[in-house]
């Protein structure tokens, strides 16, 4: 929706200078002979707008010597964007450009992006043109859109191959600048109403996806770690653990009070019994557990013996089969064609017995097998053997565990018995000690439990934090994803309208300017022209195809006020041989037909350079300057 206008071009150097008149709305034409400096004129404007011009580069391939070998060369471009005036100043060979605002503020910007320059001239210009500086991802590479990318559909310059439609990208701007994706994006950004929003959202979506995936990975990694190191903490939540911890702390407090109290008081007789009972209960439980464990050990041992027996049987079978395979291999006496009755070789049909009767092949008893079948049988025996081995190992492990448990239970039983014995015969003093000991035992085991729970709590709380982070990242991503779908659909709908308009106008312009074109549209996928439904025709119309494409862009920017195309064209018409003057005139004339209803010449600006013989008659009043030999564009100063 922003509108770019060029008001004036000024070039000043030590030896040469040039100053244009004020440009007007509508069409401005610079006419001249070949070599007068028409391309220089357009290039100066492009340079002033931050573009890269190979011929202005000192030490470049094909330098414009008058400019490059001069000194103090400066290009001053007066422009306005949406009626806000700016003056752009840039020196030849410099990679900086100054922007002077109407209040007098001057800001210097770099042309090229580097780590030290977060905001370059292109960012500023695109911001003014209300085009978001979006990042596009292609595979793992990403690039930021540049003003020079946008100008590929605004500046119609001399190109070797007009069928490419787009101006070639500035050298070294984005290394993947000329992919179909980029060109598609440029077209969409300039002609779509909400495509900007779409790409901004897409960018956000990609970032959100990254964030979500990272959060997910962290969460899963943490959960995996819990599973491996502390499986008990896997399924509990922090509320539950905190409750448990609170309970234990309460009990601990109570026990501590009890302990303090016990330390003071002398124990009375009626306290003996509960202590005695407590110890006895523990002992009984211990003995019961011991009995149970011993029984289990016996079971496991028997199981192990059974497994070992089966193992040895399989082992024997395996070794027998190996011998059978060797025998069959060396002697080859019997095979699937051997009759089990007489042991003679006879050929048997499938589904038939040796006697000729019908049989079900699946149920038919086999006496002899092939080498391959023996090998299979052997393999399956070996698999069973492996299974047995695993089972034996796990039994062994269990046996070991049980034996250890028995040892520990036996020793604690002995300890408890000892304590019971001493209670019965000891004094009051010892009873007190015994009571304290019991309390302390309880405190110790509760503290162990508490420790474990506190560790678990930390783990669980961390997990909950990661979970929350993941949830947030995920819902953020989901939002962008949903918006992506909406914007994509909306954009496509709107594009439909613009594309239909484009196709109609493009077709009209081309059929009016080229004799043998009957219909022209652009491809929905890559926005490239499709002429006469791709039927063969001469290549001579490619200049017109390109030119009408630009004109049509201008037209749609006038018909659809919300699209970003800045209602401006800079055209340097081709002067190569093979471009017929009459044809070019006819093509240029079409510019008059692009105005939609309600729009006038005041609503756009075209700056055009062309040869004298190529100007349509209707446009002769738009010529602001005609360069006639020997007058060139650049004027030599009197004193140099």
């Amino acid at each position, binding site marked *: 929706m922003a509108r770019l206008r060029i008001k004036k071009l000024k070039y000043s150097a030590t030896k040469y200078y040039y100053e244009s008149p004020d440009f007007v709305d509508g069409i401005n034409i610079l006419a001249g002979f070949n070599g007068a400096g028409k391309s220089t004129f357009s290039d100066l404007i492009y340079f002033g707008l931050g573009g890269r011009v190979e011929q202005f580069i000192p030490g470049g391939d094909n330098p414009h010597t008058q400019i490059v070998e001069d000194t103090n060369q400066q290009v001053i471009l007066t422009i306005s964007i949406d009626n806000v005036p700016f003056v752009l100043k840039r020196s030849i060979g410099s990679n900086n450009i100054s922007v002077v605002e109407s209040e007098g503020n001057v800001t210097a910007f770099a042309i090229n992006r580097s780590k030290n320059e977060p905001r370059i001239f292109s960012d500023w210009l695109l911001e003014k043109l209300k085009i978001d500086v979006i990042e596009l991802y292609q595979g793992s590479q990403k690039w930021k859109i540049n003003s020079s990318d946008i100008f590929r559909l605004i500046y119609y310059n001399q190109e070797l191959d007009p069928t490419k439609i787009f101006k070639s990208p500035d050298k070294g701007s984005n290394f993947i600048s000329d992919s179909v994706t980029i060109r598609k994006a440029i077209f969409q950004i300039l002609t779509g109403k909400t495509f900007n929003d779409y790409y901004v959202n897409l960018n956000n979506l990609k970032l959100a996806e990254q964030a979500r995936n990272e959060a997910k990975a962290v969460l899963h990694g943490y959960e995996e770690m819990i599973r491996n190191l502390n499986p008990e903490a896997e399924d509990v939540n922090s509320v539950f653990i905190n409750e448990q911890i609170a309970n234990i702390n309460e009990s601990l407090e109570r026990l501590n009070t009890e302990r303090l109290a016990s330390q003071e008081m002398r124990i009375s007789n009626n306290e003996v019994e509960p202590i005695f009972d407590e110890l006895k209960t523990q002992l009984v439980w211990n003995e019961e557990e011991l009995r149970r464990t011993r029984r289990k050990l016996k079971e496991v041992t028997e199981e192990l013996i059974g497994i070992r027996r089966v193992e040895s049987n399989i082992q024997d079978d395996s070794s027998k089969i190996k011998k059978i395979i060797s025998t069959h291999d060396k*002697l080859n006496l019997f095979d699937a064609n051997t009759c089990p009755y007489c042991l003679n070789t006879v050929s048997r049909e499938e589904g038939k017995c040796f006697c000729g009767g019908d049989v079900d092949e699946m149920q038919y008893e086999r006496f002899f097998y092939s080498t391959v079948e023996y090998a299979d049988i052997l393999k399956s025996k070996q698999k069973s053997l492996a299974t047995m081995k695993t089972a034996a190992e796990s039994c062994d492990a269990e046996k070991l565990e049980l034996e250890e448990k028995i040892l520990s239970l036996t020793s604690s039983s002995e300890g408890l018995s000892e304590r019971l014995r001493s209670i019965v015969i000891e004094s009051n003093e010892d009873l007190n000690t015994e009571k304290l000991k019991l309390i302390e035992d309880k405190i110790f085991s509760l503290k162990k439990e508490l420790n474990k729970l506190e560790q678990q709590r930390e783990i669980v709380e961390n997990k909950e934090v990661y979970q929350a982070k993941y949830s947030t990242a995920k819902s953020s991503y989901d939002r962008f994803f949903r918006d992506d779908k909406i914007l994509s659909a909306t954009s496509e709908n709107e594009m439909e309208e613009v594309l239909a308009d484009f196709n109609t106008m493009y077709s009209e312009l081309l059929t009016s300017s080229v004799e043998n074109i009957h219909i022209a549209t652009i491809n929905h996928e890559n926005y490239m022209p499709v002429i006469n439904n791709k039927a063969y025709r001469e290549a001579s119309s490619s200049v017109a195809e390109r030119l009408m494409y630009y004109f049509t862009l201008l037209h749609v920017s006038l018909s659809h006020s919300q699209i970003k195309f800045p209602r401006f064209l800079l055209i340097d018409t081709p002067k190569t041989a093979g471009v017929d003057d009459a044809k070019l005139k006819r093509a240029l004339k079409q510019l008059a037909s692009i105005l939609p209803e309600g729009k006038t010449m005041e609503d756009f600006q075209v700056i055009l350079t062309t040869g004298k013989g190529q100007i349509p008659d209707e446009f002769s009043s738009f010529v602001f300057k005609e360069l006639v030999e020997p007058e060139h564009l650049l004027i030599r100063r009197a004193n140099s």
Partner: protein
Amino acid sequence: MFATGDDYYYITYTSMILLSVMKRNKPEKQFRDIRKLSFLIDFVSSERLVNIVERYQNRDLVHSEMNTEDRELLVNSYANGLLRQQHVLKLLFALDNREIVSIKKSEDKEVINIWLNEDNFSKDFLKLDVFKKEKENAKKITKLVQRISVLNLDTLLEGLYENYGIKTWQDYA
């Protein structure tokens, strides 16, 4: 289902190994009474069985009882020997057809003798490493039971079973 005990190849290799170890490879050196082979097969393949014979051979069994498992194994080997008889005979006749062995009736109607035709099969076969255990067992049992190749059936059964308290019966028609 694949049952290794009755597989024809199993009977083939154990018999051939036994005959070879006993050097019964010419008509002049025949193995007497092929019915003996059915019982000897398990001894060739089971080290344990041979051990049993070895251990109890010189002991006075009246005063020292044979251990239950050992006794069970020995009884089972006798039963297998009986059950396998027809099978073994059929197999040996088939081997005779292919000239791997030669079978000849003796003057006694019931008795058929056999010898191995070592030229009619690959020399490497019996030299295979995989039969190492079988060859050792065959050597041992040949040593433990005197003149095993020329004994008659009853004497063999006496030596392998009756002497250890296992009753045999005459039912091999």
